[in-house]
């Protein structure tokens, strides 16, 4: 069978970074080909070359055995190559339908006037085929990240591409949505579409991929069949070493001080009468489905959204938190789930971002920034978290998605808060760095901080938490001990709806 796409000896350099070194990759018709590798391995760069966003420095791209030169996104579309980018690239002020058909609007009257009715009808059809209950006219800005991702997927599908590239499509999706996506992928597969699938979630590989190509440091490592290659083998190909992942050792915190206590927190439907406490040295995991209200709880505690009622105690003293500044002053740090929007100044360099929340520590008596210390500190964290960047002076927007993530983690680590809330701390982070972050969180707890981890990945919750708080529809449905709690027990609490007739929770995803 001639491969649909075959890329050979692809080379690409950015200033200071040799991102791709003679890489090869191919996709067969009807194949799901997973592309794996650590953060910064070059996966997105390779796919951006295939989809006409970047131009290659050297190498050959063949489509159906014929050499092609992909020079622009438009040309890639015409060749039948579609891509869902890792970074959400929607236009927030337009509605879903307008986003999906941007550049290809159905037109009437002299090819200039948009046929809005057909636009909405086509979108509705597309959504129906995806079992997606979404109004074509909904403003994209008002959607959660997960739903925005679904709109991106719909957009890619609408192109009817022969090759479909998905760069971490499931990073923000819940299980039901992932299942739906996989159904769609299988359907496309049956139609002979070739699919490139990039993800850091190992379990997805076995479920959906036919073959796996692994990259490391911009180099091609190898291609193996997905079904009969053990996950450990793939991981060691990715990181060049084996990774140990021991379950948590739960410390005895009987006599430890309660660092953070939250009583009867309320905010609309999303947070209903939530009470819990975290002790010094403890890691409290927050489990639940998307939209359960976990993020909302964190945002209220952090002062990013105002509470309607409730009390917050830090070190046993009642604190009034009206805005994030109050929270930071009380010693609470929050790592938000949407780092791109809230956590990073993408135009500034890595060092500036890392010290952003603690800049006052780096000011000389005259009010001048101590640049050398800032850079030294930044370099320390770059090493500690293995942030892949040519130097601490690189602008963060040039870092790969996962490495941008680590920069935000570094920022809050440096800020040194007593209570740290991590919202999806490892989303888009590779396995190697993930276990580094787990170790770090454990170390932070051992140092006497109180840690809250919100995660949609159950294995992560189980791997980290000393206790597990489960939420459903804005209510705290239970707190379970960590360690060997069965997943089924967590799921039971996570789906414990108030009554069978309530509609699903609305609003921001947790």
């Amino acid at each position: 069978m001639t491969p649909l796409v075959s890329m050979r000896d692809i080379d690409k350099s950015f200033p200071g970074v040799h991102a791709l070194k003679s890489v090869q990759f191919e996709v067969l018709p009807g194949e799901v080909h997973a592309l794996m590798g650590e953060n910064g391995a070059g996966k997105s760069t390779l796919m951006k070359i295939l989809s006409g966003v970047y131009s290659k420095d050297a190498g050959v791209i063949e489509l159906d055995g014929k050499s092609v030169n992909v020079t622009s996104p438009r040309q890639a579309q015409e060749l039948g190559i579609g891509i869902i980018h890792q970074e959400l690239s929607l236009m927030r002020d337009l509605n879903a339908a307008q986003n999906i058909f941007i550049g290809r609007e159905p037109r009437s009257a002299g090819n200039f006037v948009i046929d809005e009715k057909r636009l909405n009808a086509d979108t509705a059809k597309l959504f129906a085929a995806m079992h997606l209950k979404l109004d074509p006219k909904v403003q994209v800005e008002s959607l959660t990240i997960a739903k925005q991702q679904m709109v991106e997927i719909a957009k890619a599908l609408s192109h009817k591409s022969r090759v479909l590239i998905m760069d971490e499509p499931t990073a923000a999706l819940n299980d039901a949505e992932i299942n739906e996506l996989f159904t769609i992928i299988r359907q496309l597969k049956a139609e002979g579409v070739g699919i490139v699938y990039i993800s850091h979630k190992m379990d997805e590989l076995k479920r959906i991929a036919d073959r796996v190509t692994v990259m490391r440091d911009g180099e091609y490592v190898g291609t193996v069949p997905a079904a009969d290659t053990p996950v450990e083998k793939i991981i060691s190909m990715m990181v060049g070493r084996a990774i140990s992942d021991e379950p948590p050792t739960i410390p005895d915190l009987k006599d430890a001080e309660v660092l953070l206590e939250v009583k009867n927190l309320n905010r609309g439907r999303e947070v209903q009468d939530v009470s819990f406490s975290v002790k010094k040295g403890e890691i409290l995991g927050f489990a639940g489905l998307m939209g359960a209200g976990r993020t909302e709880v964190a945002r209220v505690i952090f002062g990013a959204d105002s509470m309607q009622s409730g009390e917050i105690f830090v070190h046993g003293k009642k604190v009034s938190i009206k805005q994030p500044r109050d929270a930071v002053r009380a010693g609470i740090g929050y790592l938000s789930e949407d780092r791109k929007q809230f956590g990073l100044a993408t135009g500034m360099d890595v060092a500036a971002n890392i010290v952003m929340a603690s800049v006052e520590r780096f000011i000389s008596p005259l009010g001048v920034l101590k640049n050398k210390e800032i850079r030294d500190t930044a370099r320390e964290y770059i090493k500690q978290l293995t942030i892949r960047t040519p130097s601490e002076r690189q602008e963060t927007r040039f870092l790969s998605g996962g490495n941008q993530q680590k920069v935000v983690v570094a920022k809050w680590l440096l800020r040194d808060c007593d209570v740290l809330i991590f919202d999806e701390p490892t989303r888009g982070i590779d396995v190697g760095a993930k276990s580094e972050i787990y170790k770090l969180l454990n170390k932070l707890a051992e140092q006497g901080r109180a840690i809250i981890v919100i995660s949609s990945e159950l294995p992560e919750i189980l791997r980290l938490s000393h206790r597990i708080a489960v939420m459903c529809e804005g209510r705290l449905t239970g707190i379970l001990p960590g360690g060997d709690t069965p997943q089924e027990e967590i799921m039971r609490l996570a789906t414990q709806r108030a009554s069978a007739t309530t509609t699903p929770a609305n609003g921001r995803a947790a």
Partner: protein
Amino acid sequence: MSAAISNPSPAAALWATGAQKILAFAGLIFLVIGFSLASPNFMQTSNIISILQAASVNGVLAVAATLVIITGGIDLSVGALMTFCAVICGVLLTYMGLPLPIGVAGAILAGIASGLCSGTFVAKLKVPPFIATLGMMLILRGLSLVISGTRPIYFNDTPGFTEIATGSIVRNFLPFLPIPNGVLILFAVAGITAYILGRTILGRYAYALGSNEEALRLSGVNADRWKIGIYAMAGGICGIAGVLIASRLNSAQPALGMGYELDAIAAVVIGGTSLSGGRGTILGTLIGALIMAVLINGLRILSVAQEWQTVVTGSIIILAVYIDILRRQRAAAA
């Protein structure tokens, strides 16, 4: 995914989209009622007409500015361009003695040409819009003086020229309501622009550019070309404003036009268009222009000193934008 997907409440959506216009409109009504209570002269037909007349030139310029602002840019050259186009019109009609339609077309074409220049600087040379249009503003101001020899050009030889803005077709049908043509032209320009923004691809890409230019590019759209198109259209509309002002003054005044760009931007902002791009409406801008005209006229009728009129206008701009921010926060929390 069928489980967890639902839409924001319709009330919140309505509040978010419709309320700014309603708010601005309510503000306008409030001002009108206030001034008519304060002075019996305010509601006179002749005064209303003069308010509309005053709003027409600023309104047309504000429509042009709205287009550029929606793409996430800013156009500081609208006032200077208006003057330049008026001068071109004068050269064609008075100096060269060409027929009236050619003079009008020449002014509009000059506007489009200038817009193409600004657009190219911004889209192709990547000069920030603020700088590109600041430069264009100075260039056009200078050129107007050079071309006209720093003297006003009068249109006494072109019969019917003043009718363009100050005549009234409406009077023939409704003798008691002599709405000047200039106002009709404003409404026509606004209506056509609103249609283009709302219904055509040019408008769609204008919003897309302001919302996320990179995403538009990644979608395979030739973003630069459309951006230049928007600047050109804005330029053409400034050309219309040039004809309007020349007709109203029966002359092209080469030194006129300073400060017009700020009045235009003020009207846009009061009308709820976001300076960061991606959102805004022509209806809002129209209301913004009317609010400014009513305010200045009303204050004058109440014999408030000129200096204080400017202070009040400035405060209104800040207040209007602050209310818009409050509204958006509430909409986000809903």
